[in-house]
């Protein structure tokens, strides 16, 4: 294995084939002209430098490479094949235009970051105060049914919201199978998870009875709190919008609807069963 330092090959190839990359190859030849990023490529190939890290922050499907010199100071490089998407951190600004970081912008973003922390369902990366708009590469939706940024990754990560099916319960925990990760529509029935009794709700944790919160077969919306051990992720439903979203009545086999946060009613038999319900969204 030899790195670029010890090999005699010096020039990056002018391989990628879009209008913006033609500009990039000029950059490499000339050794650093000034502002070539008035337009970004529409799509990207893995390994293709996209923009300078001064102007954008790397999002899903990209990575920061200090050696990809684009106008100095490292660049952001695509890591999957897909469409280039720019998300401005300031929601009032149009997404495609990179904005220079000013004092007022920074203040506004601090506020929005604060709400992000309070809003439990937001990704952790959004809570970081970063004035740069975030650039990411998104796969086309048709490919393997997944429209999530970041490629094949139906891999659960900490703070992801997941849909799980309860497999079995015992007094200390509920064992679940993770079906859907985040917004991706690709289902993976392979990742196991555990909702421990102390993670079911935020209050009166010591009085939680797993049996009166979940039943095997329920579909539960939960958040990943830890990658766990070799076999299981640790999940939590300690939030209003987390908990059982779908459950079948033991009496009639009909799907039940939630009455309040801890009970569901069967529309056929009228029986009320105990569940830790998720607050219905939208």
């Amino acid at each position: 294995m030899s790195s670029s330092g010890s090999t005699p090959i010096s020039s990056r190839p002018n391989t990628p084939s879009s209008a913006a990359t033609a500009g990039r190859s000029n950059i490499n030849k000339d050794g650093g002209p000034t502002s070539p990023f008035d337009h970004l490529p529409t799509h990207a190939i893995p390994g293709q430098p996209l923009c300078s890290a001064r102007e954008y922050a790397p999002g899903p499907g990209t990575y920061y490479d200090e050696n990809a010199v684009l106008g100095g100071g490292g660049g952001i490089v695509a890591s999957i094949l897909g469409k280039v998407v720019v998300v401005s951190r300031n929601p009032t600004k149009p997404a495609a235009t990179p904005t220079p970081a000013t004092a007022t912008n920074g203040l506004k973003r601090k506020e929005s970051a604060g709400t992000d922390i309070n809003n439990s369902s937001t990704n952790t990366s959004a809570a970081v105060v970063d004035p740069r708009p975030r650039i990411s590469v998104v796969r086309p939706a048709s490919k393997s049914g997944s429209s999530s940024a970041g490629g094949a990754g139906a891999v659960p990560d900490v703070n992801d919201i997941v849909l799980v099916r309860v497999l079995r319960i015992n007094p200390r925990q509920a064992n679940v199978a993770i079906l859907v990760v985040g917004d991706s529509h690709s289902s993976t029935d392979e990742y196991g998870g555990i909702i421990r009794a102390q993670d079911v709700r935020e209050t009166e944790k010591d009085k939680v009875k797993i049996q009166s919160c979940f039943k095997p077969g329920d579909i539960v919306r939960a958040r990943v709190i830890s990658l766990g051990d070799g076999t299981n992720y640790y999940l939590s439903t300690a939030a209003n919008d987390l908990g059982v979203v779908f459950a079948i009545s033991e009496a009639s086999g009909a799907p039940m609807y939630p009455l309040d946060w801890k009970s569901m009613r069967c529309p056929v038999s009228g029986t009320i069963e105990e569940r830790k319900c998720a607050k219905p969204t939208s």
Partner: protein
Amino acid sequence: MYLSDRRRILVPPLARPLIYVDDKPNPAIQASTKPAPSSNAARKIYLQTSLIPDATGSAYVEHQQNKILALVNGPRSQKGSFSPTAKLAVDVKFLPISSDAHVLGIQQGGGFTTSLERTLADFIYASLIPSIRLGQYPKSGISVSVVVISGPPSWKGVVKQIAASCVTAASVAVVDAGIEVLDIVTACAVKFSMGVEDDVQIDLDEHGIDKSSDRITNKMDIDDGQPAPEVPGIGRGVVSYMASRDEISGFWIDDESHQRMDVETSHPHSIEGAGLIKVLKTACDGAKDVRILVNGVLVQAFAEQQETSTQAAKKIKLGS
């Protein structure tokens, strides 16, 4: 010794491909595979992605007689101890019909996975590992299986070529699966003369069919296995290269001169210093050419995917 593997239908250990009378070298075919004008111009490669819908990603590479299919499955959950990064598993299979190498391997090593298959798998693993962002997929496994559907009729000195095609196919399949990578790895095989101090002759390795008469030190036809005695050794190598990052992710170089055993050991063939650098550079240039093709194919595949996704969106609109 085959009892452990009950899932596959195995060929008898001494099976050989059928040889028909008509299979004698056809002069018409030979004429069609005449070498390119420049010996350093890469031959045509056919590349296609996403041909196996069941796999997460797949790629098919056809380079001369080499037909190679790479499949990627994953990232999948992995049982066992906690691992903060994904684990990559590579395996290589020669189809029994691919060539005589499979039989060769069975006779030599025994067992279903031949030593050649294992060696190739190790090289592909080493070439891909620096390119894949394994940290993005904790507790997961990514499995790459490479199937050599067909190879050249004779396997003398083509292992490096097969390895090059395998690496390229595997890396493109990983990209097709949507797994995050630092860069695409493309590989190129070279052959060169060894033991020459000042004048190393290098060619992109094309199954030994280059017979450029203008070369002095490297004139012989490699395929007949009977090189002229005055010729120095023939080396073959394959270099895996990440073109955008300008990094070599793996190389594998062997002295493949047949007369090596006969030469007194005081002058072993070697390649080092400037000669080795020249070899690497030539191979990297070849890999860059392959990369251009890969980029073109990926852009085309992306455009098609986008088209189908917009069509699907339209259908949903019409339906609702």
